[in-house]
């Protein structure tokens, strides 16, 4: 196919098999039949011939236009690169059972909001405000779960976020969750990548897995934000444990140290209540407001109207031609016919 036609397409291609019908007007005029003794007796008449050709072309245009219109032609949306605000955001959400407790570490009662419910409410707002972003959602507890692949369908993203305050599962297994969240970024280069990690705890990452994660982070190079939903009384990211400073004694602190050692842009936010979560999300949003080049696919352009327009024009001419048909009684002299031919055709 020549490159000129490359951006064009049709919705139902089989309809185009009807296109040969457009050649029908060459053999069938559809005009009223009149008996004439000898057509050769009429002198050559350029005007009549041109009108005849015009009507044949009208017929071809009519049938062709209708068939093409039926097939649903369109021009494919082109990809345009624009400077805008947008990024690929991979959300990694902790679904361990403790997320269903309040920030005070209790079962929510009355107007109290669990950590999961607060994240659900605030993340929904976050998704709504960023129209150009693509989102992916990964959940994790004992095992990581791919909830939604990277998509720009924000309804689907909100549906996935709406499910995060359901009862959670067992444990917090951070390493596998991080690996899956990293795998959600596509191969596209030149798009800002954000890994938003929301959890209320941390776990020890096996040193062997640490190396694999380090390699994955170095390859993807996302901006990493850790929103740590801290339960009252539990250790902070920055607290040194009283005894030995091992990952087992202070997993949060050591996960933070691990993230810091990755040499990627990283910020940790510690939130001890819904308001603090809202502030943190607002700050992440502000940080990710840098204009970046993003590729956008414009919606495709429907060309059905043009096809029907051509068909309508052809039909108008055909209808007028039928209206202009004259009787041509056979008894008239051939001379008379020849003389009147232009008038008859032109009328």
């Amino acid at each position, binding site marked *: 196919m020549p490159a000129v036609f490359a951006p064009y397409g049709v919705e139902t291609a089989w309809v185009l098999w009807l296109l040969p019908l457009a050649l029908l007007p060459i053999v069938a005029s559809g005009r009223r*039949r009149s008996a004439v003794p000898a057509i050769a007796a009429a002198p050559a008449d350029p005007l009549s011939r041109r009108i005849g050709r015009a009507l044949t072309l009208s017929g071809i245009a009519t049938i062709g236009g209708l068939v093409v*219109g039926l097939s649903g032609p369109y021009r494919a949306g082109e990809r345009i690169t624009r400077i805008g605000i947008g990024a690929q955001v991979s959300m990694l959400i902790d679904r361990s059972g403790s997320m269903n407790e309040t920030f005070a570490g209790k079962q929510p009662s009355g107007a109290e909001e669990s950590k999961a419910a607060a994240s659900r409410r605030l993340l929904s707002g976050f998704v709504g405000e960023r129209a150009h972003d693509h989102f992916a959602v990964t959940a994790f507890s004992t095992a990581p779960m791919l909830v939604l*692949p990277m998509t720009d369908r924000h309804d689907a993203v909100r549906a996935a976020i709406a499910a995060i305050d359901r009862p959670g599962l067992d444990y917090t297994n951070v390493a596998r969750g991080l690996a899956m969240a990293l795998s959600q970024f596509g191969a596209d280069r030149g798009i800002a990548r954000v890994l938003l990690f929301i959890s209320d705890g941390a776990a020890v990452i096996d040193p062997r897995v640490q190396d694999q994660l380090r390699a994955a982070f170095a390859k993807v190079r996302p901006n990493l934000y850790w929103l740590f939903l801290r339960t009252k009384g539990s250790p902070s990211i920055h607290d040194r444990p009283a005894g030995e400073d091992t990952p087992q004694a202070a997993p949060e602190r050591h996960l933070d140290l691990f993230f810091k050692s990755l040499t990627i842009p990283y910020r940790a936010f510690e939130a001890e209540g819904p308001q603090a979560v809202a502030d943190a999300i607002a700050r992440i949003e502000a940080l990710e407001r840098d204009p970046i080049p993003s590729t956008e696919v414009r919606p495709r352009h429907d060309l*059905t109207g043009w096809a029907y327009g051509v068909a309508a024009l052809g039909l108008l001419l055909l209808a007028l031609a039928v209206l202009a048909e004259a009787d041509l009684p056979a008894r008239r002299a051939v001379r008379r016919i020849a003389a009147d031919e232009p008038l008859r055709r032109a009328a």
Partner: protein
Amino acid sequence: MIAASPIPWPIARNLRGWRFLALAVAFGLTLAALVVPVLPVTRIGAEILMVVDITGSMNVRDYAQDGKPVSRLDTAKAALRRLMADLPCGSRAALGLFTERRPFLLFTPIEVCADFAPLDGALAAIDWRMAWEGDSRIAAGLSRAIEMAAGLGTDLVFVTDGQETPPLPGGEPPAFDGRPGAVRGLIVGAGAYALSPIPRYDELGREKGFYGETDVAQENRFGPPPSDAENREGYNPRNAPFGAAAARGTEHLSSVREAYLKRLAGATGLAYAHLDRPGGLDAPVRAAVTPRALKGSLDPRPILGALALALVLATLCAGLPLSLSPSARMR
């Protein structure tokens, strides 16, 4: 010479002639196709919660595709993806995973056409490695899935092979405490009818053979012993209430437990269908779920265009037999 006797031009007769009328109607239809908006219509769709069993027995490869064995889970995923493509636009679907004793909701209902890409991607990404526990208490999971569907206001499509792990005490499922039939839907039985070995994986997810008879619990020995325990060899009320012999059985092999699933379906008021191939779920699902009136849209242009085309072809063909013969061709 020309003016001497004008050729009769019967415009009134032409106006009444059927060829003019046909072309005029075709012209009108084509003009209408240019301006007509998309029409709102009501369609019959579905709102479903899909819950997929991702426990170990779903890894059994007892389906075949292109001559190669395919696991139950892969077949179920393919069938659900096909189902999503077959449902009319405006239908909505939510997705949950089942293992242990409860479903885990991945997302609330989303539209199957506009959000098809993420929906299809999420279905394709389902993996047994997402399971958070090894148990498979299907009756409990089904009962909670029904509650979840009721909460979401959807119908239920529950895909499982029906193999309870550990086996039920006495083979009796716990009583269903909901109202049967309050949630409509379908239990889809995955798996072949013959017993097949269950693949076994190491902690890194690599396959390492199959389960043997002694690797799995063949009998549930929690709770009180069955009533016939006294007749077992080596029975002792205190030291060996289940008898002295190790339980034997075929729990390490798996087939679709159709009788059990049909019984569960009967108790909960759901329908049952067997998954024969990666497809064909469309009809049983539509029969089982509540038909929902959806706002659909209909593009009337193809209808108008097709009518116009038929009329034009009819006027052209009216003169075809004669005009094909050169002597009568009108030029």
